[in-house]
């Protein structure tokens, strides 16, 4: 259709023919173009019309509403457009028919992220109050990352530094580009089916463009819908991703996540030993309190000693008998009072009895704690480490 008509060959075209010709020429090109959006109008027409401009020029643009352009810009926003140039034959005006729109550059990505952050914040996705605690010692750990690459290798090497008892389930995911969101969401679903303590979403460092998938609404929702606490370990130089904000805990790199989990073993081990020590101490103190009644013996011995000293010397044989009796009592007392702390540290309940202690029960099954609690001729059950004996109270003294 394209013709070269020399001046001397006077072949005359109609206006319509010229516009059709121009349109045909224009439509031979597909182009990418960058500029600022202006006069964006989304009316009741089947197309959307706007201008793309720079400091000097304006390019009229449009796209049909049923075209999947991928992004809807606002006035003043810098975008990159893909499409063909064409011409409206009726008016002879030319424009660009757009088939794809992308936000331009880092600034735009950050702006987009900020907008979504505000929206999700208002919906409560980043509230501190909904964050779940990371278990003291997570054992069953789900990992979402690229299964091939240095990141997972590095994680495994670091996580096992202190302890090798972890169960690690790796769900391979695309962590960059168009397919990432879908892939990461399906990994979350996969891991939700398992019985886990923790999920770690991770990826090595990257630019804001690389990490844009971690700023998507679907990822934020997948993190909050995950039945297990989630650590976000996406390495980056930029301040944060929305995945970081949504996660129950955020660390700056996958290695940090591994170190945290590895250290949790040491902390847990320390805590459990500490708590157990406290338990033993509490129990020993309890035993000490309960045996304080034995002190009554001590007090009466003291009184007897004073009495003994005040007796006149001519009652020698009596004195001797009292002395022998006192010594015997003292020995009994000493052995009963031998409840020192260091000795008890190694005690378990059965050993308390094995050491020679016994517990006396009255006929109602109550523990007898004091001589005041028994009567002469009362039956008592005495429990030893290896069994019980039945006894009758023959006498009392204090």
């Amino acid at each position, binding site marked *: 259709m394209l013709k070269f008509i020399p001046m001397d060959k006077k072949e005359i075209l109609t206006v319509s023919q010229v516009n059709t010709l121009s349109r045909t020429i224009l439509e031979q090109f597909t182009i990418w173009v960058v500029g600022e959006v202006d006069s964006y109008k989304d009316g009741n027409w089947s197309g959307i019309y706007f201008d793309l401009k720079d400091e000097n020029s304006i390019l009229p643009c449009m796209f049909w509403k049923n075209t999947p352009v991928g992004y809807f810009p606002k006035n003043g926003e810098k975008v990159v457009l893909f499409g063909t140039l064409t011409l409206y034959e009726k008016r002879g005006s030319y424009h660009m028919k757009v088939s794809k729109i992308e936000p331009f550059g880092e600034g735009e990505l950050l702006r987009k992220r900020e907008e979504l952050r505000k929206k999700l914040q208002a919906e409560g996705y980043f509230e501190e109050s909904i964050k779940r605690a990371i278990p*003291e*010692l997570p054992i069953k750990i789900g990992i979402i990352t690229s299964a091939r690459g240095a990141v997972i290798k590095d994680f495994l090497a670091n996580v096992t530094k202190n302890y090798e008892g972890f169960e*690690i389930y790796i769900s391979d995911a695309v962590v960059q580009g168009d397919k990432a969101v879908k892939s990461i969401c399906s990994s979350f679903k*996969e891991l939700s089916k398992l019985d886990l303590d923790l999920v770690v979403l991770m990826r090595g460092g990257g630019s804001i463009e690389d990490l844009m998938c971690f700023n998507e609404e679907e990822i934020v929702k997948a993190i909050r819908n995950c039945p297990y606490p989630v650590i976000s370990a996406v390495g980056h130089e930029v301040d944060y991703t929305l995945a970081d904000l949504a996660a129950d805990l955020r660390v700056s790199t996958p290695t940090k996540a591994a170190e945290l989990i590895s250290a949790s073993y040491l902390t*847990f081990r320390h805590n459990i030993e500490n708590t157990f020590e406290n338990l*033993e101490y509490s129990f020993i103190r309890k035993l000490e309190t309960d045996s304080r009644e034995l002190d009554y013996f001590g007090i009466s011995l003291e009184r007897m000693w004073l009495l003994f000293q005040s007796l006149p010397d001519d009652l020698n044989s009596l004195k001797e008998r009292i002395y022998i009796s006192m010594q015997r009592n003292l020995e009994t007392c000493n052995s009963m009072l031998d409840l020192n702390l260091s000795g008890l540290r190694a005690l*378990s309940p059965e050993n308390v009895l094995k050491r020679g202690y016994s517990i006396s029960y009255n006929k109602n099954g109550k523990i007898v704690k004091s001589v005041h609690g028994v009567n002469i001729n009362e039956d008592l059950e005495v429990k030893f480490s290896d069994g019980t004996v039945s006894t009758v109270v023959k006498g009392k003294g204090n």
Partner: protein
Amino acid sequence: MKEKEISFSEALKKLKIITEKLDKGDLELEESMKLYEEGVSLHKKCLEKLNSAKLKIEELKK
């Protein structure tokens, strides 16, 4: 469904609660002994579980 095994966090929490109860000291000797025994067994179970666990790495099929 199989009953879920007590987690390390739960075990530690339980041990702390037992210790607190013992600390109050208003219990009968027998009750104290029972609590102490429970604590000993929890502690023992935790250590056994910690020491017997083996590293397992599994890549899930999608």
